[in-house]
């Protein structure tokens, strides 16, 4: 007896390429600098790391609800989604082209699928430069069209790319997704296990997990780990248009939020949620 393969509906089970393809309107997926072009990182092999033929980023053009779109999907399984020279240039370069088109009156819907630990340490300052260019492009592009970020999991989104998520017009997360500057392991290593036990899943997700981030207004939409749900949330975000004020521009709100914190008192996720929830997340 054969069991028919169940189509994968969990977004987090998909590769970056599959994620980009399921997000776009059916039949419109077209990859730029695909894997057969073998544009690999030139910096990994000399350091004893096997490169990937797409350097862990998929640039996919296509449509979203019939409108031109570009999906930039980071493959979390390759080097933890670390951003190197090639993968970073793929994201920055595609956003720069989207900006050029938008300035000429041909808007493109940009989507970032963020599964990344941030800068790839083996490429260090090349990653730093690329991420600064990604930031610059998001800020410039945002005034023409919303830039939508998705943090579905399972890697999460950290480092310079968490800053990129913070610049997005709209961030979609699942419960599994995590969003923060420093990853839990790095915090434990740098500040000690008393600061954070990175194996304590409850503690980690209560602070930086999707449910907490959306409840406190640090991200926008919480969705199930489901292909259709995420595709729907991304389309809804574009329909809604750019926010009246981007999160990263809400200086007064966060000045006030920080001012009322007692920095000497312990703080946990549920406590913060009670403090910040009533403000409606600022949006």
């Amino acid at each position: 007896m054969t069991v028919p393969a169940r189509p994968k509906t969990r977004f987090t089970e998909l590769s970056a390429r599959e994620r980009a393809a399921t997000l776009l309107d059916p039949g419109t997926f077209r990859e730029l600098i695909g894997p057969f072009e073998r544009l690999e990182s030139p910096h990994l092999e000399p350091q004893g790391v096997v490169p990937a033929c797409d350097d862990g980023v998929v640039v996919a053009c296509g449509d979203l609800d019939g409108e031109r779109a570009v999906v930039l999907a980071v493959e979390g399984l390759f080097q933890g989604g670390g951003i190197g020279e090639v993968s970073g240039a793929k994201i920055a370069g595609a956003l720069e082209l989207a900006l050029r088109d938008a300035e000429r009156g041909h808007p493109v819907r940009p989507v970032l699928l963020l599964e990344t630990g941030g800068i790839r340490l083996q490429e260090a300052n090349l990653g730093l430069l690329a991420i600064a260019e990604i930031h610059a492009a998001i800020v410039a592009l945002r005034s023409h069209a919303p830039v939508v970020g998705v943090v579905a999991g399972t890697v999460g989104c950290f480092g310079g790319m968490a800053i990129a998520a913070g610049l997005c017009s709209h961030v979609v997360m699942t419960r599994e997704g995590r969003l923060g500057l420093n990853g839990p392991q790095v915090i434990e290593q740098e500040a000690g296990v008393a600061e954070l036990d990175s194996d304590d899943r409850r503690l980690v997700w209560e602070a930086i997990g999707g449910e907490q981030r959306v409840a406190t207004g640090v991200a926008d939409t919480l969705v199930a780990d489901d292909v259709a749900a995420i595709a729907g949330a991304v389309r809804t975000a574009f329909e809604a248009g750019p926010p009246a004020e981007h999160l990263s521009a809400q200086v007064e709100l966060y000045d006030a939020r920080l001012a009322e914190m007692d920095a000497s008192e312990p703080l946990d996720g549920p406590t913060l949620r009670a403090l910040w929830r009533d403000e409606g997340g600022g949006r």
Partner: protein
Amino acid sequence: MSRGRIWFEALAGATPDGEPASVLCADGTVGGGRARFLAVVPDPEARFPRARGGELGLEEGWALARRVREAAAEDGDGDRRALVAVVDVPGQPYGYREELLGLHLALASAVDAYATARLAGHPVVALVVGQAISGAFLAHGMQANRILALANPGVAVQVMSKRSTARVTRRSVDELDEIAEEVPATAYDVASFARLGALHRLIDGVEADEPDESELETVREVLAEAISSARHDSSTDLSGRLASPEARQHRGASLRVRERLAEEWSG
């Protein structure tokens, strides 16, 4: 006294005002034009203990954003003052509370403010006088349309402290130094960073800890030239970083990717 404070006080020639004490901000002049100087410095009394050593944390990120936006709003459509980021930042704080309160968003707010000011026509110049590490440098310096650095042994540009990189990559500091000789992007010294082509000028022959009057004058002149060159540049983006001869040599893949994308973009 931190290098950030030394250079801020010497260049701004004014007493910083406002809160928090870890973010210095004052208006002054460079080459006869108006400039707002900004620096992040250690504050042993800072409210958030993990950001007392000059780290760019929650309060620092949002405060930089506030001061940069304030200047942009005041200048409106008139003469836009230069924004000078004096960079000496050891990194970001590592803490549970910091993550809970959205540290990434605090850094994004500073990135947003600097980038928005640059796009609006403010010349944004970063002057690296000490450490320029990781997220802190992304938030305070990397969105400048001109980056300057002192060619000085204490000046370092990198994505993580050497100690931390060694722990994360499970390599010894000696091994990291060996790799850095092969891969300049992983080196800490500013001369290696300069090879990547993102610097407008590397300033030689200036003592970083105790600059004398003639050294200060040298730096003021370089600053004035950088501001003027940014003002006269028709573009307000960061594309100049990839147009340098150094970038053509050491960021070849960044250029190749962009060429291919442009060829394949419209199908």
